[in-house]
């Protein structure tokens, strides 16, 4: 009694993809498939259709300049190794480099890691700290969303059902940034706490990942010149951390204070 096989929609242009996205609300978008594959294998997801972006040319670009423009289908590995990214946004390259293993990074994409909104991914916190924006398009038009407003909760985004992420833009210019991935278990584990921090034009942005439904960014706690210990303590107090196999809520609070402080000390 085999179940009906889901439809595999494989558009060849972005326009076609947007049209299908509008028509087929039942379709799950597949980029690199590293996340969707797990959900399907674990029977957490059984969609009637998949909308694959893999056959659309031109979505994997990486371009520098005033700002960095990342295509949604650019892989983690491509971002990690790109000379453009390494030169102008080295902390971003470092962040993509610590995700899982090369095999996963060769498959997982920039658009995918944002659209999945998995709380324990590394790149979202760094993209928030760098002030990145997602360009989001549908048949109705295009808009730009700061990454901190794109991811709104556990596996939840502010994308409308007909929208696709078509680009990620990261501000350029002089800045100093760092990503500290704290793993409580083996090296290939996902973060227990991920701290991304960026200083630019006298401003500071600190985002903490893997501790709550979305990257935790508190502009009011990032006042310029504030002491690393004070910012660390303030973040630890402001965040209500999740408990999972990587650590309890109390333990994460302790690590947030330490790792935020260390990130800021390294930035100085």
């Amino acid at each position, binding site marked *: *009694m*085999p*179940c009906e096989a889901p439809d595999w929609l494989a558009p060849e242009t972005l326009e076609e993809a947007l049209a299908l996205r509008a028509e087929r609300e039942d379709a799950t978008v597949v980029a690199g498939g590293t996340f969707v594959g*797990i959900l399907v294998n*674990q*029977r957490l997801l059984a969609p009637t259709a998949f909308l694959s972006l893999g056959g659309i040319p031109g979505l994997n670009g990486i371009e520098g300049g005033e700002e960095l423009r990342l295509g949604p289908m650019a892989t983690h590995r491509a971002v990690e190794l790109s000379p453009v990214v390494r030169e102008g946004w080295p902390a971003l390259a470092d962040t993509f480099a610590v995700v899982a293993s090369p095999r996963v990074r060769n498959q997982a994409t920039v658009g995918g890691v944002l659209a999945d909104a998995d709380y324990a991914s590394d790149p979202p916190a760094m993209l928030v700290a760098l002030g990145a924006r997602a360009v989001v398009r549908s048949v109705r038009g295009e808009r730009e969303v700061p990454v901190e407003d794109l991811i709104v909760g556990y596996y939840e985004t502010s994308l409308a059902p007909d929208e696709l992420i078509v680009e990620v833009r990261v501000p350029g210019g002089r800045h100093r940034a760092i990503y500290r991935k*704290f793993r*409580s*278990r*083996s*090296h*290939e*584990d*996902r973060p227990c706490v991920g701290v991304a921090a960026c200083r630019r034009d006298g401003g500071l942005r600190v985002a903490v990942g893997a501790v709550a439904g979305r990257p935790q960014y508190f502009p009011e706690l990032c006042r310029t010149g504030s002491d690393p210990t004070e910012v660390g303590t303030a973040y630890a107090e402001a965040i209500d951390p999740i408990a999972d*196999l990587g*650590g*309890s809520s109390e*333990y994460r609070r*302790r*690590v947030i204070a*330490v*790792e935020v402080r260390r990130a800021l000390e390294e930035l100085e």
Partner: protein
Amino acid sequence: MTDPRVTGAARYAEDFELPGMLHARIARSPYPHARVLRVEAPPGCIALTPDDVRDLGRYGCQIQDSTVLAVDRVRFVGDPVAAVAAETEREAEEAVVLVDADYEELPAVLDAVEAAQPGAPLVHSEHEVSGGRAAYFALRPQPGTNVCHRFSIRHGDLDSGFAEADVVVEETFRTAAAHHAHMEPHACVARWQGDALEVWTGTQTPFNLREDLARVFSLPEEQIRVVCPPMGGSFGAKTFLRSEAIAAALARKAGRPVKLVLPRSEEWVTLNRHAATIELRLGARADGRLVAKEVSCYADTGAYADCGPGVAQKMGFAAPGPYRIPNVRVDSYCVYTNLPPNGAFRGYGQMQTAWASERAMDLLAEQLGLDPLELRLRNVLRDGDRYCTGETMHDVHFAECLEAAAEAIGWHHDRRGKGLSVILKGMQTPSRAAVAIEAEDDGAYVLRCATTEMGQGARGALTLLAAELLDVEPARIRFPDPDTAVVPYDTRTTSSRSTYMMGRALEVAAVDLKGSGGRRGYGEIVDEGGLDPDTGQGVASTHWHQGAAAAEVRLDGETGKLDVVRLHASIYAGRVVDRPAAELQTEGSMIMGLGTALYEEVVYRDGQVANPNLSDYPIPSFADLPERLTCDLIEREGAEIHGLGETALPPVPPAIGNALASLGVSPTDLPMTPESVVST
């Protein structure tokens, strides 16, 4: 490189196929303990439900507590209640989710110490001791309780021993349940030809499996054939009867061969390592001389005993450690809980008590103000000493292993951040091995023996030994997959016994061959021994594995994160047969020990495994390895071969724990996660 494992030519159990075979999947209980009210398979599908297996025999290598499917009661989350077979794996997967069952939940017991108390809910109402050959010692189930075996040592007079002590250390230690994480899952194919059953399966225990299958299907053993392709890893997971009986019962019902490969997540409900709680009291004189030791071990064997009684027994006789102690009392309990079954795991039983015993030695050293190395050297067993079991120790090298390990990490230079440990590990006793050598017309020789290959290198080592004995190139030795229809009986491929036992059988067979025309030779070795389960007196092991480990750690005091920067093991090998393989085995054991020390734990929530995948169950990656990971294999001219597939695992966690303790954090529980370190 032409090694078939490297070129991809190797064919594992998972690769085995027969024409016309079906693919199977298992439906499992969602409750830790429940009455099964109704199980219904989807219509039009080949399925096995409890009524199909009700009249089949019970099995269990030491306690006969298992049925092919759970019949009236499920006893853990994951207990098989039905199985389906279909033309493709995918169809089987879709059919299995349609199995419909009703349950009535019963109170469950999820902790071994609680389960051992009077009045705890009973997992099994009675304990029927197996009559099989894997029940190789006298079992002592405690009727009306969850204790399916109690093993005790009574040596000397404990009270007067403690009365003599100037210092006493008392502590409770815990080790977590762990999973083997073998690369290839459990895989088997079953086929019936009339009343004869054939099974191709990745197993370390072909003859024990055959015996249990004979009991299930009420057949003479000779009507069952078990063939063992090489395994893609096992570490103890592929021992005794696992899912072969389900495949066989399905195949009989379907009238076609059936293949069953477990999905990865089901590996965590098939066999794990015993979590243990160990209560320990150790007394010494002011000069460090040990005078008394009392140990109680609780081994959580889960819902079915498997070889848990043997694990508890080994925990018990390893608990005194490699020391001269005049007064010893040990009680080791194998306890049922409503958790997935636990069984053999590389160096079984030894790791748990080595953790407790070797941590206690450092606690004692601290109280006495003695160098932990010096304390150990004053007490370790030497040649000719008697162990607390009454047996005389021979070919003893504990002091040598310890000194070599200490030297390797610069112990005498600076002890801060450093730790040592030393262990003794028994080998399966009693034990029997046999091999037939047959000459081929092209000048090659065929080895017919039941030693199975799981990546440990037994095939390579035995090939080298045979080539040397027969005076031919190793390429002239053929070693077909073990097949119970043609190989002589062997105890099993466990407990680091094969190179030693089968190697000796080979020597006898080679002599026989040379003395009888050069066409065929047969060799058999039988080692007798065993312990009285109530006093622990007798011969625990005809041959002791000996090893020490040394670790140097760096601690991030703010987060509790521990980095092992240096790890060394010194293992007594007697004689090394295949050096590269022996070193790799030792390094592999050390890395597995590192996982046990720092990361690995099967986490249960309300009896359900919370991390049944390799993302949430963390094993060490290469990036986790110490900056320096080294080992030495100690040899002695004329010495006998000592198995070394497991010896380097048990001493690693306590060496790391003792290194951490030298920095002021004294751990009692494994794994030493950063969170546990900051809260110690």
